[in-house]
């Protein structure tokens, strides 16, 4: 796999440095144009509307709104929390132990690719669901 190729330093690292400067520059630019916000001081007696969690938690929030079915004695809300927080994270950790196929070529692992695309689509769907449906 590594018969030939350019050496890590300085050739490759130089390319990385260019990307790093671009990233840092975009962060500085965004920070100058859109400064961080600061709303009114916290008031435990007055709930503002609407309140959203950070965007990377929205899929959990959206899933909780989506899942409205009790399963036997288990309440819908509990199901929603267990599936989107516990079950999903466990599934992520277990990926290498579920997928025992050692093939790395994208075209030769269609099931893994389809499952990956479905997962991303689902996370995006519940993220949007979390924002749109009040």
């Amino acid at each position, binding site marked *: *796999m*590594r018969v*030939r*190729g*350019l*050496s*890590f*330093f*300085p*050739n*490759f690292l130089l390319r*990385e440095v260019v*990307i*790093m400067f671009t*990233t*840092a520059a975009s*962060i500085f630019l*965004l*920070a*100058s144009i*859109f*400064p*961080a*916000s*600061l*709303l009114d*001081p*916290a*008031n*435990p007696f*007055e*709930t*503002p509307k609407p*309140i*959203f969690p*950070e*965007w*990377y*938690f929205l899929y959990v*929030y959206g899933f*909780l709104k989506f899942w409205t079915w009790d399963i036997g004695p288990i309440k819908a*809300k*509990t199901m929603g*929390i267990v599936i989107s*927080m516990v079950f999903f994270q466990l599934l*992520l*950790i277990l*990926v*290498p*132990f579920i*997928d025992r196929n*050692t*093939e*790395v*070529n*994208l*075209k030769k*692992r269609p099931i893994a690719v389809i499952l*990956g695309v479905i997962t*991303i689509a689902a996370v995006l769907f519940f993220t949007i669901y979390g924002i749109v449906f009040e």
Partner: protein
Amino acid sequence: MMKQLYEWIDKRTKLSKYWEPIARHPVPSHVSDGVRTNPVYCLGGIAFLCFIILVITGMFLAMYYKPTPDEAYESVRYIMEEVPMGAFIRSVHSWAANMMIAAVMLHMIRVYFTGAYKPPRELNWVIGVVLFLITTAFGFTGYLLPWDQLAYWATTIGIQITSGIPVVGPYVGKLLMGGGEIGPNTLSRFYAVHTIILPLTLALLLGIHFLLVRIHGISGRYL
């Protein structure tokens, strides 16, 4: 001159013995062929850069921030309005945080689709998921610190949801709040977790993560 300095240091530290194998190892051609570099392999590095920016800007914020309900909001307002460059530093901290989460997610997606979690790299995937959870925990604890309406109520909802996990949930909720409600204990422990516990844990795991990448080399061609 630089060369002499390098040799002087090297004679005393044998630095080159450790540094040169890293520096000289060839990058596989599907990552970079010398003309074009595949950008999906940069995402881990971008996440790391964001972390460094967060540590540096965080140190400056910590010089002014006060983690008590009476003073937190006022100290953030002071940073935004009176400290020279304060608003910029805080905004960079916030943008770098969002950028880091996005980079980590995309990095995870790249590792998944290139099949880089397969043997012998399973352990590094598991460490990676923990890194991802730590990154989101940074976001969750940091969100409360300004102690404004959004901070207070988003955290309230977050803790309510967490408390809904069967069996352990109520205890985790209590542990997060440092009691029965969101108050001074919550704020000071979120601050401790955000600025001491999480950064140290992340740094340690990142060390292992990078070491394993070095041991395995980057994964093979995926197309």
